[in-house]
Each structure stands twice: as structure tokens, then as C-alpha cells.
């Protein structure tokens, strides 16, 4: 099938397949999946500039379906999502400014690439270590609970900050936390997302769990809710620059929407630590893709 905007001919089945794969990952883990969809789209022959914008467009649609499904399962904390979006958007702008600063200094690709790999490996290693500990805790103490966090030091410290105004998030079971902590987490994930040029789902999900103390299932759903806005905003800005082939995005979304539903519903059958353990593989895959890109000098996204 010919896509005149991108100037390529691609099998729609391949696009639906990519969408389906990324949809399952997105629905299950609460990530946009751009780090996998980007290279795959590039591989089908879509020009690099169109890859980023088109990926964001399909991500918007997929996240709407997945977050709506998670919402019906009670996995979305709307209040938390709305508060965090504010911090995230400001953070993305700061991250983008940092990139421009680095561009002026030169060597931006290597600095971003190496930072990306280090952050991804750290997230992967920490999440894997913590989730294995949590699974062992559940097994050893025969706990009949859906979620346990084996590392709560950061959460306790964050909840101990009594900086006005204090807010509650009943949807996440959080009685009282400083608004600045939540905004700060949104800001941090936004800065990293803007700096690394990614949606930031794989950064935000662990931050929600380990820093704010949100249950894993709610973190996945709330992260997807945030992605709706961040990728929607990205779609608009990229489309204005001519970087979105909406026909490709619509075709991809036919697969992504189905995949997102499967992914979202599948979370019902997994306890929080198991979701986090499976999640820990994702940043590692992302890191490997970046290492390959840096080593071969090819453009990934």
C-alpha cells in the first residue's frame, strides 16, 4: 500500500503487526513503546523525521484505548495524572532546552546516547532487583496481597516531606503527600523524556511506584493517561512541522488498539511485583537498541 505523505510503500499488515506488538507492551506496562516502534518503523522504510511524529500519533490513539480500559478496571488515578502532567510538560521543555544547549556545544548524540543507556540499565537493574525481592517476600511470608514493594525507603522519605500544600490521592491509596513531590516527579520524568527524546513512560512508571508509592497497576494506568496528553501534544507539534503521516498512524493504530486492550486486561492476571519484573526487561531492550545504534552509527529514531 502506498503512503504518499511519507513517500513509501508498506504492507499494511506489517504496520498492523508493529502496532499490535507495541500495543500489548503499552497496555501491559504503561509505556508508549516508541523505543521499539521507532526502529521497526524505520526498518520498514519510513523516513526518520516521519517515524518520530507518526509514532507519537499512533501512541496517542493507543494510550486512549489502553488508559480507558485501565480506567474501567480502576487502574487510573485521574487526579494524580492531571497534577503530574503539569510537571511533565514543564520538564519536557527544560529537557528540550538542555538538548539545544548541548547541540551548541557539539557531541549531543553521544552524550544523549550514553546517558540514555546508563539510565535505562539502572532502571532495569533496580526494578529487577526490587521485584525479585518483593516476590520472595510474598512467597516467604505467604502474603495474600496483590502488590508489595520491597524497597520503600524513598517512598517513606518522600511522604515525610511536609511542604504545604499537602494533597491526597485516594485512587492510589495515598493519604497525604506534598504537592511539590508529585510535581517534582512529573518534572524529573519530563526533563529526562525531553532530554532523551522519548515519551518517558518507562521512566515515569518506576518513579510513580518507588517515589510516590503508587500501586503498580495504578501506576501503569495513570502513566498511560499521562501519555495521552504528552503524545497528543507531541503529535500536534510534529504534525505542524510535517513529521506525521496520519494514514500510517491510523493503520498502525488498528493493531495497537487491539494489542492495548489485550495488554491492559492481562494486568489483571499478574501481581504487581511480577509486572515490575517483566517490565525490567523493557529498558534493557531499549538500551541494547541504542548501543547498536551508537556502535553502527545508524539513525534509530
Amino acid at each position: 500500500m502506498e503512503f504518499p505523505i511519507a513517500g513509501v510503500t508498506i504492507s499494511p499488515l506489517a504496520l498492523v503487526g508493529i502496532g499490535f506488538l507495541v500495543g500489548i507492551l503499552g497496555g501491559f506496562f504503561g509505556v508508549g513503546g516508541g523505543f521499539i516502534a521507532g526502529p521497526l518503523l524505520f526498518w520498514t522504510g519510513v523516513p526518520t523525521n516521519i517515524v518520530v511524529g507518526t509514532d507519537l500519533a499512533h501512541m496517542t490513539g493507543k494510550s486512549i484505548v489502553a488508559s480507558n480500559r485501565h480506567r474501567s478496571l480502576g487502574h487510573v488515578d485521574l487526579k494524580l495524572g492531571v497534577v503530574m502532567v503539569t510537571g511533565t510538560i514543564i520538564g519536557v521543555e527544560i529537557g528540550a532546552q538542555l538538548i539545544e544547549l548541548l547541540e551548541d556545544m557539539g557531541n549531543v548524540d553521544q552524550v544523549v546516547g550514553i546517558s540514555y543507556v546508563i539510565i535505562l540499565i539502572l532502571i532495569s537493574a533496580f526494578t529487577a532487583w526490587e521485584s525479585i525481592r518483593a516476590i520472595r517476600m510474598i512467597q516467604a511470608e505467604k502474603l495474600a496481597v496483590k502488590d508489595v514493594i520491597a524497597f520503600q525507603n524513598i517512598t517513606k522519605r518522600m511522604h515525610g516531606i511536609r511542604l504545604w500544600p499537602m494533597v491526597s490521592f485516594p485512587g492510589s491509596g495515598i493519604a497525604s503527600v506534598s504537592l511539590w513531590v508529585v510535581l517534582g516527579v512529573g518534572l524529573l520524568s519530563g526533563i529526562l523524556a525531553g532530554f532523551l527524546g522519548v515519551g518517558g513512560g518507562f521512566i515515569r512508571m518506576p518513579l510513580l511506584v518507588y517515589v510516590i508509592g503508587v500501586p503498580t497497576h495504578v501506576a501503569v494506568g495513570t502513566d498511560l493517561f499521562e501519555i495521552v496528553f504528552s503524545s497528543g501534544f507531541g503529535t500536534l507539534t510534529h504534525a505542524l512541522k510535517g513529521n506525521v503521516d496520519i494514514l500510517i498512524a491510523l493503520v498502525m493504530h488498528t493493531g495497537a488498539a487491539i494489542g492495548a486492550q489485550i495488554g491492559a486486561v492481562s494486568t489483571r492476571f499478574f501481581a504487581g511485583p511480577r509486572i515490575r519484573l517483566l517490565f525490567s526487561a523493557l529498558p534493557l531492550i531499549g538500551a541494547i537498541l541504542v548501543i547498536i545504534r551508537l556502535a553502527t552509527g545508524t539513525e534509530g529514531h
Partner: protein
Amino acid sequence: MQVETRKVIRNFIIELVVYGFLVIAYFLLILQSIGDWLTSLYFNNLTVYAIMALVLIVIQAVVLEKVTAFLVERLGLERLE
């Protein structure tokens, strides 16, 4: 428990099949009817194209999910939730 799991899986598969058909039909409709118009917009008016791109992807996501939910209820099947 097994009966319940089987029921959940059955309902979900039916929903997915219905959803899949609707999504594919919608996709074909888009390509057939507004594909050329969108391409023309892209080359002639990028601002309108950008707005339409966002609107279309949102509509595709929201409307089809709602329609499927309605159809599954009409089929008399329990939603997974």
C-alpha cells in the same frame, strides 16, 4: 475459578473479534474516503492537517472503543470489568 476464567477469556475474545472487525472497517473507510483529502491537506495546509491528524486519531480511539462496548452489551455478554 476455572469456569470463571474460561468465561472471562471467552468474553474477551468475542470482544476482541468484534473490535477487530470494526477497527478494520473504520480503517478501510478512512483510506477510501479521506485518504486523498488528507494528502492534499498535508501539502497545501499543514496547520489544518495537524489539527485533523490529532482529531482523527482521537476519534478512532474513542468512538470505536465505545461502539464495541455497546455491541458487547447488546450481545448480552458481561464486560470483563
